[in-house]
């Protein structure tokens, strides 16, 4: 699948507002902070008896999932509903042949139903950009994960969660532990952490799960887990993506847990007030044991909750950029 346009050019309009949300790469710090601040306001909506605002009333959002997902699809759906949009959930098992053609057909059909926004998950890297390059001008596309490339809303909900515990990004040491190679989450997180000014980002994984040239992403590749997590403020663990592994990436899950799985004992070297994160779903006893996953430092369920507010922010900001101008009101 080819991308017809440069994503960094087409996801932001001339005024710097979000038209699509496809990747963190190339976005400005101010825009990321804007997303976090707007999400903070949306988080306040949960204090209401009616946990809903009328912002996107009359808009239609299609969740277009070519790859299975529970958490991401559900939180996108909830976010859209809390914005009062109408939501279509469409699960499409991707066929191997002529994917581009069938994809465009699907898009054209949905556009004919007056859909205003596509939330897209696809196992091909670049698919969200491809779709953004082919939709009608009034339609926004949000990338909900494309292959190994990007998962920008996950990265932003992680930044939101980090900021709630550690307000100053420029004073943080962050460790990312696990399957960087297959992880679109890690790529988006690394871009976001760098743009937000985190001075020290360390990663560790078996050599087979570290992409070549990882240092060029602005991270320090560590030799072992202890070196990676010592004295850090944030530990981000990644899921071992068995479904994306073809061939011998790992000797065994047992071996992986022994070397990289988080236990309370191994976490003794992190800062006492550090937080432990995981994008889910957790493989307990592989990436971490249950004592860590359910422990005091774990913010894993907060990440899930925060995903709703962050997705509300991204969706409404994309739709807002489609506003057709006209006079502002007062009074």
């Amino acid at each position, binding site marked *: 699948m080819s991308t017809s346009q440069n994503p960094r050019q087409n996801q932001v309009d001339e005024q710097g507002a979000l038209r699509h949300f496809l990747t963190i790469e190339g976005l400005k710090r101010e825009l990321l902070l804007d997303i976090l601040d707007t999400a903070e306001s949306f988080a306040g909506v949960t204090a209401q008896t009616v946990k809903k605002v009328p912002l996107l009333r009359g808009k239609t959002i299609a969740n277009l999932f070519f790859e299975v997902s529970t958490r991401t699809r559900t939180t996108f759906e909830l976010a859209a509903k809390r914005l009062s949009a109408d939501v279509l959930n469409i699960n499409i098992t991707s066929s191997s042949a002529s994917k581009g053609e069938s994809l465009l057909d699907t898009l054209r059909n949905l556009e004919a139903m007056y859909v205003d926004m596509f939330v897209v998950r696809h196992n091909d890297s670049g698919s969200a950009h491809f779709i953004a390059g082919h939709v009608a001008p009034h339609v926004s596309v949000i990338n909900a994960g494309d292959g190994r490339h990007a998962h920008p809303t996950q990265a932003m909900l992680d930044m939101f969660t980090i900021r709630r515990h550690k307000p100053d990004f420029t004073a943080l040491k962050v460790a990312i532990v696990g399957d960087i190679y297959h992880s679109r989450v890690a790529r988006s997180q690394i871009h976001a952490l760098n743009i937000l000014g985190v001075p020290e980002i360390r990663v560790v994984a078996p050599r087979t799960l570290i992409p070549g040239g990882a240092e060029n992403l602005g991270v320090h590749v560590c030799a072992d887990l202890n070196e990676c997590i010592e004295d850090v403020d944030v530990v981000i663990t990644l899921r071992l993506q068995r479904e994306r592994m073809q061939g011998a990436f790992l000797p065994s899950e047992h071996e992986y847990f022994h070397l990289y799985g988080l236990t309370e004992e191994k976490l003794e070297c992190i800062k006492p007030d550090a937080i432990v994160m995981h994008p889910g779903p957790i493989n307990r006893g592989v990436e971490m044991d249950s004592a860590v996953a359910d422990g005091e430092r774990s913010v894993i369920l907060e990440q899930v909750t925060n995903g709703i507010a962050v997705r509300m922010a991204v969706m409404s900001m994309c739709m807002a950029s489609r506003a057709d101008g006209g*006079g502002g009101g007062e009074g």
Partner: protein
Amino acid sequence: MTTKTEDPGNVDEMLEDMAAKLRGKMASRPDPIMIGIHTGGVVIASRLHDMLGIAEPLGSLDISFYRDDFSRIGMNPQVRPSQIPMSIDDRHIILVDDVLYTGRTIRAALNEIFDYGRPASVLLAVLVERSGRELPVAADVVGKQLVLKSKEHIKLTEADILSLSIMET
């Protein structure tokens, strides 16, 4: 934009006048909750809240998510979380804004308030009630009434003291 020389009046005197009127209304509406609308309304509300010695903490509303012009002008870039830190069910509300103009902000604020619960009553108090209503909204307590042309705008400034000025576009 130019500032007109006409002085809209002394804000402190208007606030004294509003507080006196509100005391009268509060006789039949005990233990009210006061809520200011961002940004100017919160400034006025915090002054009235002190003057009236209201026990409940001051609430604040940012009505950005309830505006009727989202699809025309987009998102307010400086939206803040609304804060109503208590149940408003069956309570008397005093809603405060700096300027009542078209009435659209108050429409949005009422919608948002009702997403927090079902109040016993809502009173509207505004520092300035100016001409130009577009919706059937009226204030219960007014500091000052002004007749302005549509291109004239009134602005509340908070420096050492609160002051009002009229600008022309």
